[in-house]
């Protein structure tokens, strides 16, 4: 019998799909970002907050430096210290820069190089693709928030010689940076899919950060209401931090409301990403 009559059988095994199909995309992306020009400078600046707060943790745990604790309000409570670490203006600014640096080109480069067939001609779903890209930005954002946050807590335990920590504080230390980073990462990817021009995306991300804050301040000045800080990216992060760490709210509106913006941004971004990729795939 002719071989063509028999039909070719390449593999008799069972086809299994893995839940880690996105991992090669993520690993490759993490390596690529690390090799970028200015990576070390941006990482050093982002990490600088950690070292300042490490000194603060040291000061807060030493009775002989009590005079400093009385001068600096954030040193008075652990919740205030960790909230300030995660939601201070400089770190939020650096997180925006990190998002631009690590995520602006992630999907826009795929649009530019028409690279969707590279992924969707392999055993990868849309979810795998998005998860892989999302993981790259999230990795870098969490590396400068959650990871140093945990390190600060460990150093604090080390300096005080005590392993006790309030469960609510621990939960806030773990949950707040995740919400903060998920929101920024999804916003970054959602903007990244809008254009193959990476420069345009970089500017757009920075404008969202700047414009939302400036708009909130202008509206507050005109209408004398703190509620307008609900449209501010950094204002919401700050207020959410106050809510989760149980400290005095930064603005005069119910702090739980500030959960809305990250949820809306993440939800809309996810919808936009899925819609755009489906559209690109369907060739509409």
């Amino acid at each position, binding site marked *: 019998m002719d071989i063509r009559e028999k039909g070719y059988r390449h593999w008799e095994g069972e*086809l299994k*799909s893995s839940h880690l*199909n996105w991992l090669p995309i993520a690993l490759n992306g993490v390596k690529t970002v690390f090799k970028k020009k200015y990576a070390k400078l941006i990482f050093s600046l982002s990490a600088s907050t950690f070292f300042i707060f490490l000194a603060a943790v040291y000061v807060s745990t030493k009775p002989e430096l009590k005079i400093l604790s009385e001068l600096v309000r954030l040193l008075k409570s652990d919740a205030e210290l960790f909230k300030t670490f995660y939601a201070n203006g400089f770190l939020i600014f650096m997180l925006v820069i990190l998002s631009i640096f690590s995520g602006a080109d992630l999907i826009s480069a795929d649009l530019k190089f028409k690279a*969707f067939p*590279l992924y*969707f*001609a*392999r*055993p990868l779903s849309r979810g*795998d693709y998005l998860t892989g890209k999302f993981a790259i930005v999230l990795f870098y954002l969490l590396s400068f928030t959650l990871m140093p946050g945990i390190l600060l807590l460990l150093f604090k335990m080390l300096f005080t010689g005590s392993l006790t920590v309030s469960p609510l504080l621990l939960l806030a230390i773990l949950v707040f940076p995740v919400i903060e980073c998920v929101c920024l990462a999804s916003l970054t990817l959602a903007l990244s899919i809008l254009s193959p021009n990476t420069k345009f995306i970089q500017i757009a991300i920075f404008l969202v950060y700047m414009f939302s804050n400036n708009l909130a301040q202008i509206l507050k000045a005109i209408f004398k209401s703190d509620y307008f800080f609900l449209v501010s990216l950094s204002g919401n992060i700050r207020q959410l931090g106050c809510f989760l760490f149980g400290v005095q709210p930064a603005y005069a509106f119910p702090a739980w409301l500030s959960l809305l913006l990250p949820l809306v941004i993440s939800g809309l971004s996810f919808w936009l990403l899925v819609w755009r990729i489906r559209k690109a795939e369907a060739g509409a």
Partner: protein
Amino acid sequence: MTAVLKAEKLSKWYGNILGISDINLEIASGITGLLGPNGAGKSTFLKIAAGQLKPKLGSLTLFGQPVFGNPDIFRRIGFCPEHDSAYSEMSGWQFILLLARLHGFDRREAGERSEKALLTVGLLESKDRQIKGYSFGMRQRLRLASSILHEPEILMLDEPLRGVDPLWRIKIMQLIKDYGKQGRTVIVSSHILPEIEAMTSEIVLIHQGKIFAKGDIHRIRGLIDSHPHQVSIRCQEPRRLAQELIDCDFVLSMDFGLDGRSLTVKTNQRDLFFTALIRLIAESGVEIEEITSPDDNLQAVFDYLIGK
């Protein structure tokens, strides 16, 4: 023979522009050439077959499974798109390795397969160069490497020889023929007819988004009644041979060559003509030097079918 690919009433259009229309097609294992002029719908059909585009109407299955939105089936498909879609900042090695990893191979196997694929397309020596430094032909070979690294059961190649130098053109054609001989399914599109003719006689002719013909090229030619077959006979005594043939009903016309040593006969019944010709040669003793069919080739069939 079981169909590997089955398309039913397949249609795709982009806004007001028609890609393909109402295509019903079955393709079995072996090499099939997808032929058609630019804009005929070859790439659209291949993209739908490779799961890169969703059809507007109809369905397409591979191995009995739907393709679009079915990632598992891509383990069995190798797709080489027409256009470049590589990250130009990466080296050839990094690029192929990433694609191998995306197929789910572990680091060691991905490395071995990448090396083998690059060796097959002759890029192993320049694997560490950035893709942006590759020539057009090298990028084309890189695309081919990316489509064969997982040794797919069905290989879909959209204009795989475009921009490739003559030496590698022959090597790639041989690679495709080897794939076909192994019993795999290869669908290769081109608008360069001799390329397809050198690889297979099994063709699908697509024009204006529709299938014009499918099957063995010689059989298709036999079915075209509107254009009589041409048979060119080279011999010492063409006029004597013409005398013998003139009474046959199936001979429509005859032309003598300017060199006085050839005769071109047009017939509407090729089989009967050849039977009669053999008998005449035996009876008359005319010495024949060469018999050729100038229009029994892909170009002629293509021209007849698209009405040139």
